[in-house]
């Protein structure tokens, strides 16, 4: 019925205006709840990116003996490159290794001075797709038949593999905790927001329970009473979500460039797609909560 739709829209718009204390309360609650959730999700995203970036820096180095056979090295490199766990395999010659070492050690020049010739071996530097798979990749390298032939220490090939076992383990312990804390916190905020919004809507409807009773006595069916409330809930959610999104976008604009400047050594990013995703989540969940909150709260007063 087109008449009814018009009626319901008009009705909920009027309610919206005339019960503005309640409306404002609900809009503020929805806005702030979604803002909290949105900011946490965005922060969580940045943290996750940082964690991933740090993890990406975990690599396995294979030291090669002086005068290794070129074809062996290439074979090993190809074997590793074709592994789905491996992101890239780069060759570092003896000279490049020395240059890097000098660069790294330039704050302890006493050690560089002491060095004669080029004691550093060439290496294959293996970057991983998922840093947590480091032990698997190491095992694969060890079991590869070419590996002992090119290894720096053929008698004890294992010593030709370098990866910061302890650091990697600590890093993973830390990043796991960071991720769990992140998820738990966002989940907590989401649940709390849900309760807040639900609570506010319940109070708003509680304050109008007499009206609902009167409507019933005048012969209004449940859906006739419910629809304007639900539409109102949707309006409120839309306004709240929009405000939250605008605030988050504003914050992003204001904070991210500064943060990127201060933490220029970290790869901080919060792309447009992420913002769009967050916006969609906020609007979607806002409307859902608005609808469900109103719906549930009404049930109590819609019993005959």
């Amino acid at each position: 019925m087109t008449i009814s739709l018009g009626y319901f829209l008009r009705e909920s718009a009027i309610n919206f205006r005339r019960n503005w204390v309640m409306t404002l309360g609900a809009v503020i609650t929805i806005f702030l709840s979604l803002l909290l959730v949105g900011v946490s999700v965005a922060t969580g995203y940045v943290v996750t990116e940082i964690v991933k970036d740090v993890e990406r820096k975990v690599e396995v180095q294979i030291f090669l003996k002086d005068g290794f056979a070129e074809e062996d090295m290439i074979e090993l490199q190809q074997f590793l490159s074709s592994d789905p766990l491996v992101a890239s395999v780069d060759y570092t010659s003896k000279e490049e290794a020395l240059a890097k070492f000098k660069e790294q050690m330039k704050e302890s020049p006493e050690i560089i001075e002491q060095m004669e010739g080029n004691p550093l071996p060439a290496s294959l530097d293996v970057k991983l797709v998922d840093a947590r798979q480091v032990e698997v990749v190491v095992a694969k390298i060890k079991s590869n038949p070419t590996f002992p032939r090119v290894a720096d220490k053929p008698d004890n090939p294992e010593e030709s593999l370098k990866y910061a076992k302890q650091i990697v383990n600590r890093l993973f312990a830390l990043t796991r905790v960071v991720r769990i804390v992140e998820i738990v916190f966002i989940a907590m905020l989401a649940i709390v927001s849900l309760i807040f919004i639900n609570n506010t809507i319940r109070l708003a409807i509680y304050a109008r329970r007499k009206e609902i009773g009167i409507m019933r006595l005048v012969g209004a069916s449940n859906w006739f009473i419910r629809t304007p409330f639900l539409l109102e809930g949707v309006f409120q959610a839309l306004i709240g979500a929009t405000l939250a999104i605008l605030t988050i976008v504003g914050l992003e604009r204001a904070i991210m460039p500064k943060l990127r400047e201060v933490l220029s050594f970290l790869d901080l990013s919060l792309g447009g797609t992420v913002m769009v995703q967050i916006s969609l989540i906020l609007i979607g969940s806002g409307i859902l909560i608005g609808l469900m909150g109103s719906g549930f709260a009404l049930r109590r007063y819609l019993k005959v």
Partner: protein
Amino acid sequence: MPYMISMRGVDKFYAGEKPALVDVNVEIEQGEFVFLVGHSGSGKSTFIKLLLREILPTRGTIVVAGQDLMRLKSWKVPYLRRNIGCVFQDFKLLPNKTSYENVAFALEVIGRSRHVIRTQVPEVLRLVGLEDKMDSYPDELSGGEQQRVSIARAFVNRPPLLLADEPTGNLDPQTSLGIMSLLSRINKTGTTVLVATHDREMVDSMRRRVIALENGKVIRDQDRGVYGYDD
């Protein structure tokens, strides 16, 4: 002969008190005009609330407009109520709606078009003398004006049954007379009318059927009766 209202052996007990209604047996035919009288607290409003299925009886059967209220499914209740106009003792106006909107609501509920609403609502408000109070909210109206909005809402959709609980309690004798003759005219068009009232003058002058309650019991049911009770 079809009964509009039929109550058989109806008791109503509110929590732990003496009963509000005891063994009420009443039949009201379609098109009748009935006064319900009794002292304060004798059960008149309870009687009306039962017919509107606002409350359920503790015992007994109630049939209104062919519907057995004890068996009526809860989702069907609104449809029952659309056939009953009710003037409530405490008016029960929606506080966030103007007089016009309050009366219009009764039509919107049954899906009347905006056109119908636009013509009928002002007409009905004029009948109760509120043509210049259409845009006032209930708390901007005097007691009597609120009562008249409630009356207007009750009959705007021409229901076959009209219940009125003390419809002239806040009205002066002259306005009361106007309302009563309005109810009378509505009754002449075939609507069954039940009026709970304390207005002795009114009851005595109209000489209609009178049902008298005392402590929840029907003590008198008289055609062309009077208010009764000696002061």
